[in-house]
């Protein structure tokens, strides 16, 4: 039903939970093969936007479509065969092994009656390899460190053979070396496997370093959309985050690099 094109279109999308709009009139087009970072302060609607993009939430106004087809016309299963989500964190109350968790990425392909096929096992093995965690296969998920768990969750998402991968703050619980490793991995999936990436990012410098395009959200609306150089300016950050910063250049990559100013320095 869905073609290989998996461009994501949001047209005039609004969403609210119980009180007040969380997202307001969002227009966003993301083409095949893009690598897009969503940035903005806590509660600006990044996670909600990701949930609308994979259809677990439906907009109260406007339309979200994938490859030209409205998400309303697709079943959860059909969407999950194209779109995978890496949540911030999850825990499992039972002692599943890594291999068992990653195989769950095949859920949208496995028939309830005939069970999983040889291809499902091949795809999970491939996903383990892509995430670089072949050696963890027989370990228990709950015994792993935060960084290792995050890779297992990524491998599970990759077992879904996603054309579009949504990540919700994939580096939040990781130390600095795992943050870089995780984003390198995501970038290589984008460059080598052609997976479209949309990630909510907390750390502006990492976002600047790894993403081609950044979308800046403030109180549920898009206030800037473009390359890191276009989006990460001193005025936009002051406006959106109410934080005084100095934007300089990264010494090696020349991408924008943000330095936080203490209050005294910014008053001078």
């Amino acid at each position: 039903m869905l073609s290989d094109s998996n461009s994501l279109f949001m047209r005039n999308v609004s969403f609210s939970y119980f009180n007040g709009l969380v997202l307001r009139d969002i227009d966003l087009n993301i083409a095949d093969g893009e690598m897009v970072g969503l940035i903005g302060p806590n509660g600006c609607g990044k996670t909600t936007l990701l949930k609308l993009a994979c259809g677990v939430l439906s907009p109260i106004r406007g339309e979200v479509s994938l490859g030209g087809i409205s998400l309303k016309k697709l079943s959860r299963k059909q969407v999950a065969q194209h779109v995978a989500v890496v949540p911030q964190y999850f825990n499992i109350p039972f002692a599943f092994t890594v291999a068992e968790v990653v195989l769950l990425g095949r859920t949208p392909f496995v028939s309830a009656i005939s069970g999983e096929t040889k291809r499902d096992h091949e795809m999970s093995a491939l996903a383990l390899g892509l995430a670089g965690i072949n050696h963890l296969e027989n370990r228990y998920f709950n015994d792993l460190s935060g960084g290792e768990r995050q890779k297992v969750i990524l491998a599970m998402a990759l077992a879904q053979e996603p054309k579009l991968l949504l990540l919700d703050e994939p580096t939040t619980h990781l130390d600095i070396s795992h943050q870089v490793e995780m984003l390198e991995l995501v970038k290589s999936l984008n460059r080598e496997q052609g997976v479209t990436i949309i990630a909510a990012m907390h750390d502006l410098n990492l976002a600047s370093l790894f993403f081609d395009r950044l979308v800046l959200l403030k109180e549920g609306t898009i206030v800037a959309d473009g390359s890191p150089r276009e989006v990460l300016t001193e005025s936009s950050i002051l406006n959106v985050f109410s934080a005084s910063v100095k934007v300089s250049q990264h010494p090696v990559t020349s991408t924008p690099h943000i330095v936080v100013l203490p209050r005294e320095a910014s008053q001078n």
Partner: protein
Amino acid sequence: MRKRNRAAIVLVSLALALIGAILLACALGAVSIPPLDIIKMTLNKIHFSNFQATWQPADETIIFQIRLIRVIGAALVGAALATAGVLFQGLLRNPMADPYITGTSAGAALGATIAMMLPLGLAFSGLGLIPIAAFCGALITILLVYNLARVGSKTPIVSMLLAGFVVSSMLSAIMSLLIMTNGELQLKLHSVFAFLAGSISVQYWSQIAVIAPLIIGGIIIALFFAFHLNAFSLGEEQAAYLGINVEREKIFILALGSLLTACAVSLSGLVGFVGLVMPHAVRLVLGPDHRLLIPAAALAGATFLVVADTLARTVLAPTELPVGILTALIGAPFFIYLLRRTRREYAF
């Protein structure tokens, strides 16, 4: 595939253990009958063979008209409760969930009690309103408890235990009130108490004929949900990301668990702890993969209850204990042990 072989070995061993337990349970009683004779007379009965009868004709009556009915009833109840426990625990991601703790049993019991108030001769035959009333009671209760316990998109252990306890207490109070005040129930007081304490009260093959297809069919349907139950173990949100229609399947699985509970309650009254302890014990040994867990827990639950029921009617013979007393005596200490363990392993 080593894993598949291991699963086959486990299931065959459990099935053999169940057959052994059934044989032993049929052999024991006021008159003991050698297991070999039981095998021979059973094979004769199904026209598979024609062994010379080395036993009294009365023995055959004891086996086929009394003991086998009861033993098979016990096996069905054990299998149904253990499978319901697996379903509730997997769906709610909560190793403490079981038909008893979640209040489903109490709901089923109240439904059954109300059905017993009706002056219908059918009420105790297994064909009557009891299973239907028990099913409705079970389903309404689990939905009530689940919604009370739900905080946002999560169902924390503590609130589930509390909601289950509160609802169970309320339903038990209503049940006591009915028993104290209703004339029809007063006449059936002995049966009612046996029902509440949990005892295998199966007397006719017709009861088995009605309930067995429901329980066996329910367990087979549960197997189709095994893969999705694994996905539910990651949380409802993740299950939705993996393409599961969460709300629809959740209701279906809760209904299936309630059906199994209701079937068990209609055969045995309130037998506690089987649905909690069996899934847990099996999970500790074989791991949490529901594709193996469901059939293994069903077989282990059946075996456990056959053994417990045999003890219940032989330990203090000729006095018969309600089997629910035995399962609680074994189950309660295990539950306490789990609660203490939980703090380390199931921290949310």
